[in-house]
């Protein structure tokens, strides 16, 4: 029984951590600029493809990862530039970001096909924890994801930049009146969030594999987690990403792999029926 519990904790935490990186960025963008960024999944896959291609071409793997993160950051900037003129029109924002996501997916499909790419894990080997074999890469991903999420939370809640982000998310016009350059805040949030998604993509490609279709999966997970946590609530997204991770692993363990995503989505719907604003959301 301890084996099973340990397995659920380890696997659930790693999966939750990776999706937490994606969802927290998605949530941050929405919270600050009220943009539903449907191209968020594209940053997830693009960073992994760039890092994979560069490291495969002989470049230093860490520099390749940095380049991947830079590309995902640039993608965030591109989303900012494309949505800026239509930011007030939510439908237009969705159409533009969705079109960008589909365009990137098609570019990847045409150039690399629909088969996945997989990065060699940065940390090799396996450790045995109470008869449960866990790859070192999973442990490293867990540490990196949790560190990133804690740092993000600290940055938003404790630093002056974070206070500007919170002020802008609460009322961007009032923030502007007290001298905050909200456009800079938007750019920062968009780029930072895309980099987080890119980082998640790189970690994901080390444990699993990434194909152009994974961008849609990342988007669906991010969306579901953010709604569960409460739209715009950063902490809500982080907590609910771990809830989703544990639900997934619990389902695989006790009901079978075929039910994993079904049960996860059903649980989210059930929670939303009971609490329509999500776990940490507030009624507007």
């Amino acid at each position: 029984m301890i084996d099973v519990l340990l397995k659920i904790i380890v696997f659930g935490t790693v999966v939750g951590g990776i999706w937490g990186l994606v969802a927290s960025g998605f949530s941050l963008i929405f919270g600050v600029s009220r943009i539903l960024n449907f191209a968020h999944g594209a940053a997830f896959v693009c960073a992994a493809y760039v890092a994979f291609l560069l490291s495969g071409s002989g470049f230093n793997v860490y520099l390749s990862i940095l380049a991947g993160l830079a590309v995902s950051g640039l993608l965030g900037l591109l989303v900012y530039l494309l949505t800026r003129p239509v930011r007030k029109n939510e439908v237009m924002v969705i159409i533009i970001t969705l079109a960008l996501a589909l365009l990137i997916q098609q570019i990847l499909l045409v150039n690399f096909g629909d088969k996945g790419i997989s990065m060699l894990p940065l940390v090799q080997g396996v450790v045995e924890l109470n008869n449960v074999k866990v790859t070192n890469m999973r442990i490293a991903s867990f540490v990196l994801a949790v560190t990133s999420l804690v740092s993000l939370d600290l940055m938003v809640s404790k630093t002056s930049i974070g206070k500007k982000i919170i002020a802008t998310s609460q009322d961007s016009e009032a923030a502007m009146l007290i001298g905050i350059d909200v456009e800079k805040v938007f750019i920062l949030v968009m780029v930072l969030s895309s980099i987080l998604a890119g980082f998640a993509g790189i970690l994901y490609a080390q444990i699993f594999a990434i194909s152009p279709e994974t961008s849609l999966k990342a988007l669906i997970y991010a969306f579901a987690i953010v709604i569960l946590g409460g739209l715009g609530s950063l902490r809500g997204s982080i907590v609910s990403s771990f809830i989703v991770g544990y639900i997934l692993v619990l389902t695989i363990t006790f009901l079978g792999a075929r039910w994993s995503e079904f049960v996860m989505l059903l649980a989210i719907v059930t929670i939303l029926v009971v609490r329509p604003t999500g776990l940490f959301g507030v009624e507007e």
Partner: protein
Amino acid sequence: MRYAKAVLTALILLAAITSLCVQGGQKTEREKVVIGVIGPMSLPEGMAEEKAVKLAAEEINAQGGILGHPVEVVVGDTKLDSNTASTEFRRLATIENADVIIGGFSSGVMLTMMETMAETKTLFLADASSPAHAKKVAENYERYKYWFRVTQNNGSTFALDLADMVRFLRDSGYDVKKVYIIRDEHVWTDPVVEALTPLLEEQGVEIVKDVRVPRGYSEYEQLIHEAESLDADLIMPILAIAGTGDILTKQWATLKPNILLAGHDLAAIDAEFYNKTNGMANYEIFLADGGALITAPPTEKCKEFVDAYKKKYGHYPESHQAYGAYDAVYLYKTVVEMAAKAGEKDPFDPDVLVKYLEKFDASNPIELTRPIAFYKNHDLMWGDNYVRNWISQWQDGKQYIIYPESVANGELKLPPWIE
């Protein structure tokens, strides 16, 4: 004067219409042979089909065409959608006047296209693997006789190949008593497992668990742990739709369980699979769907084809559909020439050509990139001397056929971590 002009115009129009009618009544001389290729053209399967057909057409044209007529290739894109596929098939058959249509990846899409094929009476040298297609031919021969499966065996034959795989492993000294199956959550795997279960029971092999995974599933590590805890000797993937066979391979190679990975993982057939998994595909045993491998071509023509493909396109075939599509063009050429030689009035008539295609049966296979013969229901013949899904293994970056002996170019190698 006004009347004269009107009468003159009417006469000119009448003359033009009459002339068109006369032309229509005359039998037009054949100027070319039109070969249609249809498939999902943004996917590797469709791309490979189109490229292979164009390569074959180019080769045939360089040798004088078919009965002296140049070959023209027209392309239809199914977009993997039944409605689009049907419309595209009809366009190729009726607007482009294709003499034969080749390809048509995916079983569901194929079922729809077979209806359009029957309406337009077009010869269809087809892909896709569902037993339902050949069943239609058997049940309503006159309507569906224009359909022949060329690319790969009927999907139910995977059970025979997988049972042979287990037998081969046992004969080679790797004792298999318990099998852990991981398969697509899709109808195509049901008849495979249904047929496989008694075949394994005959060998005294137990299926300890049969796990179905949805499309895009990625958490294989947990399943590998479970297989270990159930004392399985073999993890048998039956994966095509999930699209994540590479993740299973990667996680198996990372965890290094004392269990062999051997089954039908469609991703492993890809010549780039080894590189895409950073070499983690090493020692994976898989089925070479379609009966050919780049590094182990079963016939001389297959070797020539692979080399010609690489030379023309700069890379090897994207998928095994290339072999079937290439063969289909040469098969068509062969039967047209046979019909002409036999003095048939119209050697391009699909009803005539069906008879000549049926001549390639168990006793008379035609050797193309694979030896091709048909059952009475026009299904591709399965067997060591025909086409089958060869039992193959990735070894140090190269794919080897390891069973049956008649075509094997390598021997089984167990991973060093297997005790």
